[in-house]
């Protein structure tokens, strides 16, 4: 029988049965209980204006479509508002699951250029958003210290923060990304 409906076929080789285990182990332990009700999609502020569907993402994760999930820029449309996590009738930590998948994506080399930039700033200054000249001026005008009492004005603290990022592998992760990206 033929009809005009195009049916998407999922190939066996696209399925990674271990993917969902990794997500469960990393903390989204109830993800397998998903009933595809769509509450997550219906409350999502990003989904209101884009093709991003949280339900679809969860379904693909459950199917083990690892590469498709990790390479999709949709993964980065979640604003982490936690509304889906609050409303899920199965109490799945949906937002946590998304964050876990993002971690796996970054580990596999999928990172947006703007996000690499913010990470590099964190590595070099201890702040993902370092101070700039205009705000230094504003601080002085308002009678505040020109540099806040953070890693911006404490070299030892900055070195400690950098050492932590070295020990957790963040330095290698981002600099590795940089090499691949550049």
């Amino acid at each position: 029988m033929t009809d005009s409906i195009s049916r998407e076929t999922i190939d066996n080789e696209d399925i990674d049965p271990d993917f969902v285990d990794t997500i469960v182990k990393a903390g989204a332990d109830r993800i397998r209980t998903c009933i595809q009700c769509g509450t997550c999609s219906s409350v999502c502020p990003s989904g209101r204006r884009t093709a991003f569907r949280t339900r679809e993402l969860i379904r693909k994760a459950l199917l083990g479509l690892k590469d498709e999930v990790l390479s999709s820029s949709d993964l980065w449309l979640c604003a982490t508002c936690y509304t889906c996590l609050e409303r899920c009738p199965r109490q799945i930590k949906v937002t946590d699951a998304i964050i876990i998948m993002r971690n796996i994506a970054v580990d596999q080399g999928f990172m947006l250029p703007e996000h690499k930039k913010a990470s590099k700033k964190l590595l070099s200054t201890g702040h993902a958003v370092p101070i700039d000249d205009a705000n230094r001026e504003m601080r002085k005008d308002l009678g505040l210290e020109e540099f806040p009492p953070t890693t911006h004005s404490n070299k030892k603290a900055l070195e400690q923060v950098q050492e932590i990022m070295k020990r957790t592998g963040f330095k290698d992760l981002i600099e590795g990304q940089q090499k691949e990206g550049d």
Partner: protein
Amino acid sequence: MPNRFPNLEASIRAVLPKLGIQLEDIDGASCCPAPGVIRSFDEPTWLALASRNLALAEMSGHDLITGCNGCYGTFKEALAEIHEHPDRLKEVQKVFKGMGLKYDGKVEAKHIIEVIAELGPDFIRKKVTRPIRGVKVGVHYGCHLLKPSKNRPWKQTQRHTFLDELVEATGAESTKYKDSTMCCGAGGGVRGSQIVVSVDIAKEKLDNLIEAGVDCIVNVCSFCHLQYETSQAQLNKELGEKKYQIPVIYYTQLLGLAMGLNPTELGLDRHVVNTQPLLDKILG
């Protein structure tokens, strides 16, 4: 906040001591780090850096307080993680080895508005010397102040009123508007990487606020603050008209005005969206 909004910081430093809260800076703190981005990239790094900031507070013997929902989210979630999974605390302690950082996760992290809410609206009302009359406020709580609700101190999980009550304690009117608890659209790395979507979310909220006829937005988060301030300028630029001109102010700026402090000392002359129409209404 100190790097992006020194004006809000100035209002916090001016107002809190007048409520009997003494602030002590954590020397050498770093980025919290940001829950939407750094936690999304490498969770163990996020946990270790958040724990370092918490450790600095713990070693000083004080609670940690923050004026930003993003930082608040990071600290509350990092504490919940090590309390629920003691092996994660051990993992962090291992990273800290030989660094002179003592950390057992026994410190409390609070939001400035949480501390003010503990004092209560009646307490605030007594501090008001110049009631804010005839001003309609659109209150924006922000997501990470309230959610995930199981790791937050509020009595309810939704339909919160504590911030509305604190706003009304200044004499202003908290105005109902459509989807008031919806996200501002900035978090999760969305503003950083997908600006069109991010600003469109803010636009929906701004349109609802305009519809409700508010005189200003009151928020308690540096990232929501940034989102409302800069998105309005961007939307006006795209439109070629000045439709979006709602002053965006931080709670301690509103409270400071109600306590008779002058607008300059509260950093109110340092906003992207002009606050003068609001100030004219309040100061007459």
